[in-house]
């Protein structure tokens, strides 16, 4: 493997600026890596080396001409396949959108192109981002580079595995209940779900509009900060986009100081149901933060117990409405039953053939939660629980600047293990869901390997809405403490993948 592709994005950017490496060279190195390993890892649903290399060559030409470029210009990036791209199919992992070329670019992709980052490809996900493992992708699962028999997390398992297998230095993900953070946790990588509204959702194929947020995926906290700074900002095309700037995440990631910060440990997100190896590493990190001068406090969020239940009412309700647009008329698949069917029968046959089992389950569940007779008991009640969870966070943030928990209760499970047990699958997101319900930012960073299986664990950091910078400050500081102890980065513990020629 080329040593170049193992480097952090922040280093690659310096090499590009100083002319020690060209964007074409760097892009080519990553495309070569994909040719060698992606048959096994399956991070990508689509790659077009020609367009990636053309974008890279354009940046090299402009740099040579002395043009003032964006600080990340020339750095290749991978994009989750639920963000629209006019030069690549956008499927959201679903047969119903197979081969669809959108007529417009999402705002995030527009920003990426404007800054001159070549797009390496579109990454795999559970169908319409519904899942925790990528096993619900209509195009087959992605695999965990640490152990190819295990899941890379979901829904953004394509974006987590693509950076963990050195096929891209950075990637874009989306997080509705943990789809950036859970994959980061099980692949030894970094992922941040920004404050709701910090990044435009325009051109993000909606799952649950009040929960979805786009964010960065990388192998290093500073790298994620650089990407969040690139993609964040107000967008008039998204009415939920925050009008104000949240400041520089990269500046926060460079502070490397937690002295005097109050860090709250969430009592309800540890202990029972959490793998011992996950808890051991978590407790060690608490000690590290304390030794570095942070004040550790315990906080209680009693209503988190109800978060999964509320989430699995709110999400299906919103999804059942959002996915109504896949109607066989304006885009995507059309399946016509025999005879002379009405449009209604064509729609039903199309959606039967085009949607997979998890999408059908959630649409039917959402339809039930919203139907008269069960609305108050289910959807209405869930919205009130959302208020209680926000209040739990508000009380906790009175006592602490940042909250911490393990990102997930376990390390990566085996492919197939939870496929037929939806409730077991939903439990993976027990620690990540509350942040989406409250709209606050949440980050997962590598937190060492579990004793019992040697697989990556993650630690989650949470901050109040708009205080994303605190996550980058604490995250980068803790990352530095870990790397000083380990003598290398967490990703450097990952086994070498078998390379195909």
């Amino acid at each position: 493997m080329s040593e170049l592709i193992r480097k952090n994005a922040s280093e690659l950017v310096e090499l590009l600026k100083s002319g020690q490496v060209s964007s074409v060279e760097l892009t080519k190195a990553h495309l070569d890596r994909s040719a060698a390993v992606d048959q096994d890892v399956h991070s990508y649903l689509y790659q077009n080396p020609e367009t990636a290399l053309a974008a890279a060559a354009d940046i090299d030409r402009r740099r040579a001409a002395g043009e003032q470029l964006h600080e990340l210009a020339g750095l290749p990036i991978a994009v989750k396949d639920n963000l629209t791209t006019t030069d690549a199919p956008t499927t959201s992992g679903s047969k119903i959108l197979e081969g669809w070329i959108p007529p417009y670019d999402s705002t995030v992709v527009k920003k990426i192109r404007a800054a001159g980052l070549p797009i390496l490809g579109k990454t795999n996900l559970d169908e319409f981002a519904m899942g925790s493992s990528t096993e619900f992708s209509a195009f087959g699962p992605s695999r965990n580079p640490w152990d190819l028999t295990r899941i890379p997390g979901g829904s953004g398992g394509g974006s987590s595995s693509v950076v963990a297998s050195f096929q891209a230095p950075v990637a874009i993900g989306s997080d509705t209940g943990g789809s950036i953070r859970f994959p980061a946790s099980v692949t030894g990588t970094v992922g941040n779900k920004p404050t709701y509204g910090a990044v435009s959702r325009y051109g993000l194929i909606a799952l649950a509009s009040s929960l979805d947020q786009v964010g960065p995926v990388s192998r290093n906290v500073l790298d994620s900060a650089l990407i969040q700074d690139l993609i964040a900002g107000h967008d008039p095309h998204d009415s939920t986009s925050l009008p104000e700037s949240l400041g520089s995440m990269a500046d926060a990631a460079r502070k490397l100081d937690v002295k005097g910060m109050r860090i709250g440990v969430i009592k309800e997100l540890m202990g029972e149901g959490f793998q011992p190896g996950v808890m051991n590493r978590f407790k060690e990190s608490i000690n590290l933060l304390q030794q570095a001068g942070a004040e550790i406090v315990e906080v209680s969020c009693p209503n988190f117990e109800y978060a999964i239940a509320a989430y699995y009412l709110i999400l299906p309700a919103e999804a059942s409405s959002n996915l109504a647009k896949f109607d066989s008329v304006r885009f995507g698949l059309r399946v016509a039953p025999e005879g002379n069917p009405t449009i209604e029968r064509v729609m039903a046959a199309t959606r039967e053939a085009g949607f997979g089992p998890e999408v059908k389950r959630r649409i039917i569940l959402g339809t039930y939660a919203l139907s008269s007779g069960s609305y108050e008991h289910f959807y209405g009640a869930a919205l009130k629980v959302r208020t209680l969870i926000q209040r739990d966070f508000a009380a906790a943030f009175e006592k602490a600047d940042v909250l911490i928990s393990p990102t997930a209760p376990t390390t990566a499970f085996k492919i197939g293990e939870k496929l037929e047990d939806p409730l077991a699958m939903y439990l993976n997101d027990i620690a990540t869901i509350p942040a989406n319900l409250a709209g606050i930012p949440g980050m997962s960073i590598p937190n060492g390997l579990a004793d019992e299986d040697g697989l990556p664990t993650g630690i989650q950091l949470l901050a109040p809405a708009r205080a994303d910078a605190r996550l980058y400050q604490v995250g980068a500081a803790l990352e530095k403490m870990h790397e000083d102890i380990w003598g290398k980065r967490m990703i450097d513990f990952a086994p070498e993948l078998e390379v195909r020629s």
Partner: protein
Amino acid sequence: MSEITPDLVRHLAGLSRILVTDEEVERFTEQLSLIVDSVAKVNEALAGVDVPATSHPIPMANVFREDIVEPSLTQEQALSGAPDSGEGRFRVAAILDEE
């Protein structure tokens, strides 16, 4: 126990415009029963508390922008993903049943 029955699943699938096979009805009935029993737990949290509902995480109101015409999709672009189109329109099957 929840009230999820095979007939209810068929009815909800119909409302959702999803044709379902008998095998799917059987599997979804079983799985959705468990899920519905589990999510009904939200009501335990509300015993004895009265709180307003939250539908949106970051409260925002009256989001406006300047009323300026911006470029939009051309007719050709808008129709580019359609399974069938003609004369500048989306072409679909019959809207009404014969009977």
